[in-house]
């Protein structure tokens, strides 16, 4: 089989049994990237030299049995907010345009220990703030299914690269939907793990209490194998937890017989596109055919999700981003001639519109006199949202719903109307607030042949449960096998 047509797991198997070498895999991907990435702009930085430098060691390790992961030898693309030692990590922001971390994120250590090879850093919304990848300082990534449309965001580069076959697999991060929504827009699979399941050490923080790194893959199996590499307690991240038990076998069983699945009615109400709604309802029917019990239920708390999310996320963001001052690292304005101006001008020139908007919003909601009215209330809403998930999980094993109200929008369509963009996050942000895992998988196409995704939401640390359901759906359908035609 052709290297570029393999899933990451298939490529790993071929490398292991000697049909494909690590170098051949790198050659194939770099060649395709060179051919198409000028058009699609998935990558901010390619690390060809570093990848080839590692190739022989990795090959040797696989041949000698040192690397036993199913993904050993597989090239991987990394979202540009995950720190890579010696390789630029820009967060698609001008303010970090020249930042080269002297350390690796824990996930990078783990995937390198598993014998995977980083091939480049993927485009994203600036500091992961956005749902379209249009806020990137390096320019928008184009959706492989329609070059005039956005890939979603903020992990738009990661999702588009996997969808377009410019990376066999990738890592993204999800603060309010940033893995699931671009996966949905690009017709591939992605997992937002339980908060604390994957170490955040080395992930440049947007909203620390919501951020989580997760896999973006061609299939559920790719995500399962990737998750098994990156998950688990990390001593460097106090909020990471000992993962109770993750069995790739259980996650890939593909059996939902007798499982109870709930669909919140509030996820199919006002604002959702007809095609998306129908695709999700059709998926529900599929689950019934597979032996699951599917029930609709009320989850009125949905209406608080967007305000609570934007208050908490912006509050944390304004604090997390105040360290960028143009002095210690990153972009420094050359117009300033004193300290104060260096701060002001570096930040004014270095941050984009959306980031500035969220910094201001965050400072506002934390200001004395407003804290109780906004931040404190948002924390209360967070508690209510968590409770309503726990209540739902008393009745159901999983919750099913759309990822986004629509399929991918045209480039430029939502940039002029931030509120419209924020409202697009309505189905995803709640999951981050609750801290539960959610898997996005393709479940159809709209009338314009744009992919539609659905998400399967699970109990904390029950990734295997939702991946198993996603796998069952994948086995019964062929949406995941459809590939876009590149231009």
């Amino acid at each position, binding site marked *: 089989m052709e290297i570029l047509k393999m899933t990451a797991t298939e490529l790993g198997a071929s490398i292991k049994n000697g049909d494909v070498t690590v170098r051949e895999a790198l050659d194939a991907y770099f060649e395709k990237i060179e051919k198409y990435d000028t058009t699609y702009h998935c990558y901010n930085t390619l690390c060809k030299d570093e990848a080839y430098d590692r190739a022989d060691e990795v090959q040797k390790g696989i041949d000698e049995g040192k690397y036993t992961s199913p993904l050993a030898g597989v090239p991987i693309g990394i979202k540009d907010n995950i720190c890579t030692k010696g390789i630029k990590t820009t967060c698609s922001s001008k303010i970090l345009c020249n930042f080269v971390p002297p350390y690796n994120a824990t996930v990078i250590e783990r995937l390198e220990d598993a014998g995977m090879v980083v091939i480049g850093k993927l485009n994203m919304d600036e500091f992961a703030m956005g749902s379209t990848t249009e806020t990137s300082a390096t320019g928008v990534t184009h959706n492989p299914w329609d070059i005039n449309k956005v890939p979603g965001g903020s992990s738009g580069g990661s999702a588009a690269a996997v969808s377009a076959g410019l990376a066999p697999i990738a890592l993204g991060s999800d603060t309010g939907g940033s893995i699931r929504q671009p996966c949905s827009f690009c017709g591939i699979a992605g997992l937002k793990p339980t908060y604390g399941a994957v170490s955040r*050490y*080395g992930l*440049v*923080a947007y909203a620390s209490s919501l951020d989580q790194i997760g896999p973006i893959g061609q299939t559920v199996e790719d995500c399962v194998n990737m998750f098994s590499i990156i998950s688990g307690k990390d001593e460097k991240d106090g*909020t990471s937890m000992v993962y109770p038990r993750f069995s790739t076998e259980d996650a890939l069983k593909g059996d939902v017989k007798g499982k109870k699945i709930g669909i919140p009615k509030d996820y199919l109400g006002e604002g959702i596109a007809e095609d998306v709604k129908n695709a999700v309802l059709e998926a529900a029917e599929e689950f019934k055919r597979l032996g699951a019990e599917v029930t609709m239920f009320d989850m009125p708390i949905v209406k608080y999700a967007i305000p609570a999310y934007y208050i908490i996320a912006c509050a944390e963001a304004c*604090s997390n981003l*105040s*360290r960028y001052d143009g002095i210690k690292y990153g972009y420094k304005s050359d117009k300033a001639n004193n300290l104060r101006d260096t*701060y002001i001008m570096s930040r004014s020139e270095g941050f984009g519109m959306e980031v500035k908007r969220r910094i201001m919003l965050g400072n506002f909601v934390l200001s004395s006199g407003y804290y109780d009215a906004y931040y404190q209330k948002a924390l209360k809403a967070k508690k209510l949202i968590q409770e309503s998930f726990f209540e739902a999980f008393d009745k159901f094993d999983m919750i099913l719903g759309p990822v986004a109200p629509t399929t991918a929008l045209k480039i430029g369509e939502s940039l002029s109307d931030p509120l419209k963009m924020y409202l697009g996050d309505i189905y995803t942000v709640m999951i981050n607030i609750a801290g539960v895992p959610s898997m996005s998988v393709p479940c159809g196409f709209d009338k314009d042949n744009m992919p539609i995704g659905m998400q399967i939401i699970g109990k904390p640390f029950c990734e295997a449960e939702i991946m198993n359901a996603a796998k069952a759906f994948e086995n019964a359908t062929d949406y995941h096998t459809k590939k876009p035609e590149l231009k």
Partner: protein
Amino acid sequence: MEWEIVMGLEVHTELSTKTKIFCNCSTQFGGEPNTHVCEICSGMPGTLPLLNKKVVEYAVRTGLATNCTITQYNKFDRKNYFYPDLPKAYQISQLYLPICRNGYIEVDTDDGEKKKIRIHEIHMEEDAGKLIHDEWEDCTLVDYNRCGVPLLEIVSEPDFRSAEEVLQYLERLRAILQYIGASDCKMQEGSLRADINLSVRKKGEEKFGVRTEMKNMNSFKAIQRAIEYESQRQIELLEEGGVVTQETRRWDDNKGISTAMRSKEDAQDYKYFPEPDLPPIEISDEYIENIKNNMPELPQEKKQRYMTELGLPEYDTNILTGSVYLVRLFERTVEVTGNPKDSANWIMGELMKFLNDSQTLPENMSFEFDSLGKIINLVNSGKINRGTGKKVLEKVFTDNVEPEKYIEENNLGAMTDTGAIKSVIEQVIAENEKSVNEYKGGKTQAFQYLIGQSMRALRGKAPAQEVQKILKELLG
């Protein structure tokens, strides 16, 4: 008109952990700039704090030693402010759920009463870096070595009414922190810093006056002077019909004045919110019990015991227990000599003189603590006389010599051979015919003179009583 001074204290103390509060960098004072720094304490993007558990232990110990309630579910919060010495642009601190609350430390008032100074709270936080303003190069440099050194902030209620109370409280707090090993409390190195909130009001009035906050006092003496200056300034202002402005003031110890730094209007909005990178800290009953059971004897307990068990006077015990370093020296000396009274006397008399004369703080004593006991034993057994003992102690104090070795090398041991002493005295008599005659003629001062001459000839090494006896015999 009679005025009353009202003060509250915010004390910051650097904890004596080996590593920083959120990373593994050394906390050692005085390293080359930016050598105790890593990606975490320099706030590089993507890094996360990891709590040093020893900090929690010291905080709980301090809380228990100051009669606080321990908050068993406590959290960190972020204090946001933009300053070059703070690389993350926020300080991880505790606002909503500090680790200790509602404690007190007792002080003695002027009229001999015991008074409780209430502690509002104690919280854990990280220190900031240090800015070095280089006047010659026209630039400011940042040293991040101190960044992330663990601090406790101990906040009192506004219970102080005099500078003496403030100093007593600080001395006792310092002694407690040193006793429990939480901090070395070296003010010159900034490991104990106090900010003073001060207001004045007419005696008998209920309402507090407008307060100012004073910073930058780095010795007890400076604190005393600053309090005197600031209270006087406020009183004069009010008596002239003026008003006190709520502001932060900086004490200039060289000029002996405080100057306004910033007013309340310029006060920063720190935009505190719960720190999302650190999980809440849960402290179990067993944990607290365990710390309680392993708590060393505290200053007040020690003082009582010294008075009742060892029979030392209160004045001595106050001084001895005022510093853990004096306590350690005292207790070691008692171990070596088995004689608490002599041990206390030597410390109170001779050692304190050396400390005062050389302006040395007890924590900076750098000799072997065994040495004092050895000297006392030598004196008490007549191997050296008291005067020699003092000289040896001085040598021990300045150069950390080993007493016995030093005595031997310098031939300072007492003469025990009566025959040898006798022959030296005979020589003295022979050389001082005039005085001998005067003595025989009834002049008693002449005898004292001859003793002096004999002691000098014996180089002070013979016991005085022996000399007196032999001289009397020889003069018949």
